């Protein structure tokens, strides 16, 4: 790539981003990991980690991908940042198809698309100082900063609530929450447009979780960041997201804005997920009717045919085993893939969030 001179003061928010403009669009995204077996190592099957995702991310919003283990949310995150190459489908970032860009061509784009990882320790090189870690993006992308890299890094450290004096310390000297802040500082160094955060707070203590959630929100407001958040904690997701996509076995089963999803979930799986969240309220103990799903999530190697949820769904009929329900818009901004959706217009909500709010 060519060496670019960049004036850091000009980087953040140069082009005033139009809110509501499409930043990222994903169309029919598929990722299969082949399984090889036998004498000749022939491909006998595939882990269908991600199997046909279509969604958009608008500038400035937070879209969360939620689901249980094996639903493909982490794989999706790695596809969006192009740490993995999709088997099929298209990823378009700012009007440019990045689905099969080579490593070299992807490099300038890495400045715009960054990732935050779950394990704040595992993703920081223990032999590098904080200064070196946070400053690495500048060196890798050959970005010149006005007052030198050190000054820029120290500003970043302050931005994420660390002290500039931490510049020469090593990751092991920090607590989990502080390490996550270091990771966030590194992510922010190049003023990205899109941040894919894979379980950014789930390894942290409750009190620290809240600090980091608030920090992420502040940074979003300050720098007009767009987040794709990958998480399993539905309470945290509700707090941070504008829109939520619920995934099950490699497919999006429901995608809607926050209020729609939490108050009138349509897919039975979403209803079950929400109903399973333990709530810190003793009054609910034992006297709330819960939807309890049977068994575990099936293997993504051999997902059930048609609607993948039919093996655990209490509403499943014969059609669910033969015809795959398409992801349809059932209400404004609310899509679900189900033959027998819940909470359709006119129906009374049965979800915990909604009932409680009705009572408030």
């Amino acid at each position, binding site marked *: 790539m060519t060496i670019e001179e960049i004036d850091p003061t000009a980087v953040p928010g140069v082009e005033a981003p139009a809110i509501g403009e499409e930043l990222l669009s994903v169309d029919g995204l598929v990722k299969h990991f082949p399984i090889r077996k036998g004498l000749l190592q022939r491909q006998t099957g595939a882990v269908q980690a991600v199997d046909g995702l279509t969604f958009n991310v608008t500038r400035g919003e937070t879209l969360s991908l939620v689901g*249980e*283990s094996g639903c493909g949310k982490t794989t999706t995150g790695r596809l969006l940042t192009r740490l993995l190459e999709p088997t099929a489908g298209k990823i378009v970032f700012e009007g440019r198809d990045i689905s099969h860009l080579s490593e070299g061509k992807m490099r300038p784009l890495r400045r715009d698309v960054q990732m935050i990882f779950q394990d704040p320790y595992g993703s920081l090189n223990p032999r590098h100082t904080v200064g070196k870690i946070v400053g690495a993006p500048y060196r890798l992308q050959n970005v010149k900063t006005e007052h030198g890299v050190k000054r820029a890094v120290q500003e970043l450290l302050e931005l994420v609530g660390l002290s500039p004096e931490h510049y020469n310390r090593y990751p092991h000297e920090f*607590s*989990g*929450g*502080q390490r996550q802040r270091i990771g966030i500082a590194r992510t922010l160094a190049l003023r990205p447009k899109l941040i894919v955060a894979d379980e950014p707070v789930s390894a942290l*203590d*409750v*009190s*620290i*979780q*809240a*600090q980091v*959630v*608030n920090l992420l*929100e502040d940074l979003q407001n300050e720098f007009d960041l767009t987040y794709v958040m990958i998480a*399993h904690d*539905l*309470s*945290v997701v*509700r*707090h941070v997201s504008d829109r939520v996509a619920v995934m099950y076995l490699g497919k999006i089963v429901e995608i809607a804005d*926050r209020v729609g999803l*939490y108050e009138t979930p349509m897919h039975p799986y979403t209803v*079950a*997920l*929400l*109903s*399973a*969240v*333990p*709530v*810190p*309220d*003793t009054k*609910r*103990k034992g006297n709330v009717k*819960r939807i*309890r*799903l049977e*068994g*575990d*999530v099936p293997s993504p190697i051999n997902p059930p045919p048609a609607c993948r949820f039919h093996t655990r769904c209490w509403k499943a009929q014969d059609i669910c085993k033969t015809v795959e329900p398409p992801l349809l818009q059932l209400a404004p901004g609310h899509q679900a893939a189900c033959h027998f959706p819940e909470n359709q217009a006119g129906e009374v909500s049965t979800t*915990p*969030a909604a009932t*409680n*709010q009705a009572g*408030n």
Partner: protein
Amino acid sequence: MTEPADNTVQGTVQRIERGEAFLDVRDLKVHFPTDDGVVKSVDGISFQLERGKTLGIVGESGSGKSVTSLSIMGLHKRGVAKISGQIFLDGQDLVSSTPEEVRLLRGKRMAMIFQDPLSAMHPFYTVGTQIVEAYRVHNKVSKQVARKHAIEMLDRVGIPQPDKRVDAYPHQFSGGMRQRAMIAMALSCDPDLLIADEPTTALDVTVQAQILDLIRDLQREFNSAVIIITHDLGVVAELADDIQVMYGGRAIEYGTAEDIFDNPQHPYTWGLLGSMPRIDRERTERLIPIKGTPPSLINVPKGCAFNPRCNYAHLNGGASETERPELLDIGAGHKVACHLSPKERQHAWETDIKPKL
């Protein structure tokens, strides 16, 4: 049921007193001397638990909650950990018992399930072998009888086709099934006390709900005392009758679940409640985190361990920084370790905290 079960070891135990409740922990301290100083993981906690009841121990990492459970089970190496105080299990003090005496109780009268069922089961032995082993240590039965018992236990915890699954290895089970198998193993000798250390943290939310239901059902069936250790207030709210909130190796608040959730009295408990987004309430604009980070257990802050992170410490005229508050009863068994006067506390809770939750 309240009669202490006959136990051959019991006669040899020196009994100073028998403790009041089925499980009676008194001033338990667990200290680990290290090169950097003494790590006071648990520094004086007391609680009681009856059969059929569930105690939730809540705290963040390093609060001493797991160390407490391991010391009840006698799983700390003597010599490495310095343990003082008393732990009466049905009248027998575990701290002054010999390791062999405690071993005979482990698995039989008190059992434990762990956070990560994959690493907690031996990868080289079948699930059945591991349950049979747990059963046969304490019961003189043939392998066939023990195997039959293992299959029964797997069936009881809801594992389909238990007669086939008994011969499977842990890695062939899904996460939820593994945790069920762990529970089957823990309950194989029908223990009176079950300790669950973050039993659902590694599980998916729908599976977590199943496991919590299972623990609740089994407790009713076996009438055992249960200690559930977790950082998730939602999980304790599901299961616990009483809750102990720990911070820096000590209990800072103790009460019924209703006390803790509806009328919490310690600023740290408030902080925990404010930190977690609630799915059952109107969405708040911002979470209210606790400032700072949990203390190092080598250098616990003087006075109240929470004082550097507390928004109310300045109200106590310096007492928070110098004097350690004791865990005192503020009425009907609700205990709190805080220098704030009851009036100030009630005021802060009603005006500052409650409206924002």
